[in-house]
């Protein structure tokens, strides 16, 4: 591949994309370096994001269902002829994601303006949001894996910054570190995958790779699994899912934007990009991992009492669904689920944020201290926050996969695809996927009922003087409303029971999606069963709910299993972290006993040497210096005597000088 073929011309759309890409970066720079007062910075960055969103709309209108627009240029060159290109590739997938990212990011900016009011790091927060949005758009736009990797790391970094936004809280600092390190493990896989592809095919350009890779090659199998390692890290799949629940230490709008709607979906996006050249065997592995993740996340969500933790585990479970979708050969369904999930999960998170915000104000007004995220202390919020209840209910329905809502359409498409994997061990995938439907319905119903129905349980624990709530402000209601509308089916498909006719699926793949009524009815039945079971257990008049405010974290080992996320943290602690610490201690011992001693001897030797050098310095070097000083002063003393200040002595010397000259010139 020579450089002439490599370069593709700049098109108008590319220029627009670059503007779109750099708007958030601009906002990041401005907010980082300008001393902006109060909310000016937030208004400005929201405005820049809005501009981005408008450009994304324009690009969408121009590119959707049109031939892809690809610009490419030489990025850098190593040695002789080893070219690395970079570029922008606009196809249906890209513009769809662009629209999603800019839209959700804009809404989160709006929401944060109110949510973060009064925080000390107000501008810092918005600058980080700008950096994150920039990096995320970079992932979406880039046309090759290396550039994507760069933005991938940037996304991880900005996520680290935002999780640790309240770095003075120890838990937040630890969580950000954990997220960063766990992601690093996955990214190592990504990097190895890049190296394999580059050495094998001499290019990292996605379009070229799609055309040159043969899926029968065993090395591509390894490379695909390595790339999938990156996905496992970023999208919190089975072995590496421990960081996402901890990441909830960040501000809630951040959880909505990064840890629900966009960044964790970047993994699925990467899979969708590389899926054309991934062999089927690797896809099956992915589907298995996804199914395990979906099941484990769902189970872990069953017994959480922290509203954000429930949503976090639910996010893990849904991401598992998306990976199943890709693995089962229906990446279009996965992307469809990504979009719908982004809407309803962002909406859920922001509603949770609204609840937390209100409870926080409530706590400071009444001067009582309690955990504002604990659902055991909530209840009956339906009457106190009717608007939030409405949007929360709508998006919960979508999450459960209730017919008439967007989640139903996309989840159906994935289940449909998974039901084709029914040979041998692959049967595990649909079984786990379908049981996750039941679990999802169960925990979502539990959450909604406990939070919004029944009576407000906080007064049972604490003394409350003024039991009236501040209403949610308009600037928070707008994003909630817009996202809730996105949970309704009509935006995506005209037929509320058949996701395969959705315009997104049609836009992403050419093959006709299968549709089977049995799958639909089966999943609806499972969901209803889950809902019924949950309501039976958690109904407001029930014994359980009456004593909920006294409920412990867990009572038996099954509850403990769910509450502690399958004890994964503990397992990793024992299996990996302890071992690493032991190795580190051993290394430390070696260091102390051997290397330090050598260094000590070396130091002693140096001291002795220095003593000798000091003597040399004192007697020889200083002696020379003193000698020259003495000579100078002696000359000075001599010549001082000449200067007696008497005129006649001067005449004597002048006369002698003339004599000298006479002798010099004449004799």
């Amino acid at each position: 591949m020579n450089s002439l073929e490599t370069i593709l011309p700049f098109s108008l759309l590319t220029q627009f994309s670059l503007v779109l890409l750099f708007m958030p970066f601009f906002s990041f720079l401005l907010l980082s370096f300008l001393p902006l007062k109060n909310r000016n910075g937030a208004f400005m960055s929201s405005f820049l994001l809005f501009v981005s969103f408008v450009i994304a709309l324009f690009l969408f209108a121009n590119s959707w269902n049109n031939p892809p627009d690809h610009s490419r240029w030489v990025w850098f060159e190593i040695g002789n002829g080893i070219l690395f290109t970079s570029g922008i590739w606009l196809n249906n997938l890209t513009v769809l994601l662009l629209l999603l990212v800019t839209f959700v990011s804009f809404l989160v900016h709006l929401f944060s303006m109110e949510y973060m009011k009064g925080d000390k790091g107000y501008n810092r927060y918005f600058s980080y949001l700008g950096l994150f949005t920039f990096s995320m758009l970079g992932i979406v736009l880039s046309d090759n894996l290396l550039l994507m990797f760069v933005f991938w790391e940037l996304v991880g970094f900005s996520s680290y910054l935002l999780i640790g936004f309240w770095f003075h809280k120890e838990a937040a600092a630890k969580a950000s570190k954990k997220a960063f390190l766990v992601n690093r493990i996955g990214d190592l896989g990504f990097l190895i995958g890049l190296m394999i592809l580059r050495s094998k095919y001499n290019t990292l350009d996605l379009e070229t790779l799609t055309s040159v890779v043969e899926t029968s090659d065993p090395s591509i199998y390894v490379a695909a699994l390595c790339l999938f390692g990156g996905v496992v890290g970023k999208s919190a799949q089975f072995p590496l899912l421990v960081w996402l629940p901890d990441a909830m230490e960040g501000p809630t709008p951040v959880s909505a934007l990064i840890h629900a709607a966009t960044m964790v979906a970047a993994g699925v996006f990467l899979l969708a990009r590389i899926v054309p050249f991934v062999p089927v065997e690797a896809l099956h592995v992915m589907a298995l991992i996804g199914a395990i993740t979906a099941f484990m996340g769902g189970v872990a969500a069953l017994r959480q009492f922290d509203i954000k933790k429930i949503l976090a585990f639910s996010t893990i479970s849904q991401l598992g669904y998306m990976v199943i979708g890709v693995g089962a050969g229906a990446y279009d369904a996965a992307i469809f689920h990504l979009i719908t999930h982004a809407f309803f999960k962002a909406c859920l998170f922001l509603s949770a944020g609204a609840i937390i915000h209100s409870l926080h104000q409530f706590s400071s007004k009444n001067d009582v201290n309690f955990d504002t995220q604990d659902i055991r202390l909530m209840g009956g919020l339906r009457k106190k926050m009717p608007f939030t209840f409405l949007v929360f209910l709508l998006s919960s329905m979508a999450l459960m996969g209730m017919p008439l809502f967007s989640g139903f359409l996309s989840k159906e498409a994935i289940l449909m695809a998974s039901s084709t994997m029914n040979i041998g061990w692959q049967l595990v995938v649909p079984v786990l996927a379908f049981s996750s439907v039941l679990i999802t319905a169960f925990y979502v119903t539990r959450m909604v009922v406990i939070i919004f129905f029944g009576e407000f349980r906080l007064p049972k624990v604490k003394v409350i003087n003024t039991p009236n709530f501040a209403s949610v402000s308009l600037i928070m209601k707008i994003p909630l409303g817009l996202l809730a509308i996105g949970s309704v089916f009509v935006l995506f498909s005209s037929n509320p029971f058949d996701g395969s006719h959705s315009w997104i699926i049609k836009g992403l793949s050419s093959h006709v999606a299968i549709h089977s009524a049995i799958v639909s009815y089966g999943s609806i039945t499972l969901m209803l069963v889950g809902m019924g079971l949950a309501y039976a257990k958690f109904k407001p008049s029930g014994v359980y709910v009456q004593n909920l405010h006294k409920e412990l974290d867990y009572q038996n080992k099954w509850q403990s299993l769910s509450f502690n996320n399958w004890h994964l943290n503990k397992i990793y602690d024992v299996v990996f972290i302890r071992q690493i610490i032991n190795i580190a201690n051993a290394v430390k011992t070696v260091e102390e006993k051997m290397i330090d001693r050598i260094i000590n001897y070396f130091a002693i030797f140096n001291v002795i040497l220095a003593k000798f050098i000091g003597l040399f310095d004192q007697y020889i070097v200083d002696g020379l210096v003193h000698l020259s000083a003495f000579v100078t002063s002696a000359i000075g003393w001599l010549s001082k005597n000449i200067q007696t200040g008497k005129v006649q002595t001067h005449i004597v010397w002048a006369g002698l000088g003339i004599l000298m000259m006479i002798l010099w010139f004449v004799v």
Partner: protein
Amino acid sequence: MFYFFGLLAVISALGVLFTRNVLYATFFLILSFFSVASIYVLGNASFIGVTQLLIYVGGILILMIFGLMLTTKLSGKVLVTESHNKRMGVILGVVFFSVLSFIIFSANFEVLNKSVEMPKKMIEVIGVDLMSKYLIPFEIAAILLLIALIGAAVISEKRKEIKE
């Protein structure tokens, strides 16, 4: 005659050097200048000799005596001056004399000693030359004298702000 006046000039100069009485020294100097004027006359430069008598003996030395009177407290005592740097002074003089006479006696003056026809009326030649050939130096010398006159007057003027 030449040798006599030459010896007289040198001896009276030595008298200036060795006497301690200031007035005697001045008179020895007058004698020395007289002798030098005679040497000028013998060296075919009668105009310069006359000028020497007029300016040095008649002007400068009288001026010197006035200066002496102005700068010493006249109390009837003999004016005596002390000496210092004797060794250095004598050595310097002797060394100068010996070096210069060594140069003189080792140099070849035959061209200068060739006898030539000299103009009869020396004063006329000097006058004509001064007014034609050396007019500008002559004028500058006049201006120099004027400046010296004024300068001397200004320097020796009593100023009140200088206090002892």
